């Protein structure tokens, strides 16, 4: 099983079981995860993202070389962010990056995101776009961050047809309602960590191909079992389950 949405280090507002890398790897192994695309909570909040990515790469290779695949954080509002992107690709040999526009203070319609998307695509990097981290209603009162407006994404993907974007942490059905053009964006993929409603995954694949849905748990911020049980709640063929849990992500990022 491949989990495309885990994070290392500490969430600043509470300690989490699994917020130490060794503990995270042990817990994912126990749950039979064979590979995890790992970002870093530090990448959301720290200004020194260069050291965050260095630490992420080091932690992944030290604690989970066969399991953890580092996805570095890029904040295009920081000076010389292009160098961070270069290091992620050339020095740490990362296969993708993760961005948090709402926490980093820009919108998808800003030109800097188009530039980031273009540069990442030129380097054949997958771009993970996290739309939120928490329920907006329960955020820390001093840290209220609305979710990312995804509506500019379809046009961006049209002008960058080779881009591969994985949208994380959103109930995709809501996003499709807000931006139905996403349906036509064949290079946008979605994780299931925040897909809600009974049988939510089955309802979703009535709208988008199963090939565009990836297993992502948002662990350790979320309980891993919540993601896994969603797969049980919706009835899939064996082939579709295999695609969802493993093949789709393997096609995006081959071993």
């Amino acid at each position, binding site marked *: 099983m491949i989990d495309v949405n885990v994070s290392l280090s500490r969430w600043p507002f509470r300690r989490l079981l699994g917020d130490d890398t060794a503990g995270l790897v042990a817990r994912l192994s126990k749950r039979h995860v*064979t590979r995890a695309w790992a970002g870093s909570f530090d990448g959301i909040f720290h200004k020194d993202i260069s050291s965050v990515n260095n630490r992420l790469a080091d932690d992944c290779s030290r604690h989970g070389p066969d399991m953890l695949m580092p996805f570095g954080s890029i904040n295009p509002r920081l000076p010389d962010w292009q160098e961070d992107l270069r290091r992620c690709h050339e020095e740490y040999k990362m296969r993708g990056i993760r961005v948090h526009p709402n926490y980093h203070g820009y919108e998808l319609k800003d030109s800097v995101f188009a530039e980031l998307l273009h540069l990442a695509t030129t380097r054949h990097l997958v771009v993970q776009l996290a739309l939120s981290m928490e329920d907006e*209603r*329960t955020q820390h009162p001093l840290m209220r961050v609305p979710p990312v407006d995804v509506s500019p994404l379809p046009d961006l993907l049209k002008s960058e047809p080779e881009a591969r974007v994985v949208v994380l942490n959103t109930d995709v059905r809501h996003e499709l309602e807000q931006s139905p053009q996403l349906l036509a964006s064949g290079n946008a993929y979605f994780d299931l960590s925040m*897909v809600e*409603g009974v049988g939510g995954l089955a309802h979703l694949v009535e709208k988008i191909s199963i090939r565009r849905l990836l297993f992502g748990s948002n662990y350790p911020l979320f309980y891993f079992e919540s993601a896994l*049980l969603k797969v*049980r709640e919706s009835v899939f063929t064996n082939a579709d*389950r295999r695609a969802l849990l493993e093949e789709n992500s393997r096609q995006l990022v081959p071993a």
Partner: protein
Amino acid sequence: MLNRRTLLRRAWGSLPLLAIRNAVSLSTSLAPEKPPLIWDVHCHLTSVPGATPEDRMKEIVKYLDRMGIDRVMLSLGYPLEYNPSPQQFREENDQILRAIKYRPDRACGFVYLNPNFLKASLDEFDRCVRDGPMVGVKLLVARRCNTSELDPIVERAAMMKAAILQHTWLKVNGNEPGESTPFDVVELASRHPKVPIICGHTGGDWEIGIRVMRSSKNVFAELAGSNPTSGFVEMAVRELGAGRIIYGSDAFGRSYASQLGKVMGAEIPESARRLILGENLRNMLTPILRAKGYQL
């Protein structure tokens, strides 16, 4: 001994995947054990597909079977009214009555009341609970529950040993005018110290909600309707004790899966998991269920 692997085996069923095969084989190495009782205190007819209450109940049972849930407490019909007139809440309760009559083995009813219409609410309680098959009260957002209008409803419910499920939330961006908080539930509970009151959603912002209710021993934390954020169940067990926590989903708006995952994924003793999943609620409801002839 029951453990998490057994619980998950029940919920996973036979996911025939290479990716989960290890998990299943791990589970099947265990001796067969009695599965846990899973009762969901928080399920609505509102957004369930189906033209009739019976159709909707069929749909609910399909998912209960899939997820290993034994029974749901059903409340709120369609269209859902947030400040319903007496006629409107009677209509919604009629839908619940039809649904639970269709599958009394899988669902019990909680009567939807509106304290803004106290006399009509008490009459509706009598119709649906005292003289009918329902076993609990559901209160939503029409009026904050710390007000005195709630007292006769609580007293009437207590006489019948009916459960009380009060919606609460603590929104950082502000609650709706009639929307209760855990503070309101605690205030109400302090006037009725012998009556158990279930604090729906634990206020949503559970790290605050749990603290608010910690000293109020007759207030129960309910898990439904929020993101499956790690640590919720562990903190509740640590601060309240497993005996004061009740599983609920808020289906169909939320999935059974995401909410069950909170309990399945929590790193707590297996005895605590069993209490939360169903035993606490069954214990709370046993007197009224027996009185109404439900099989336990």
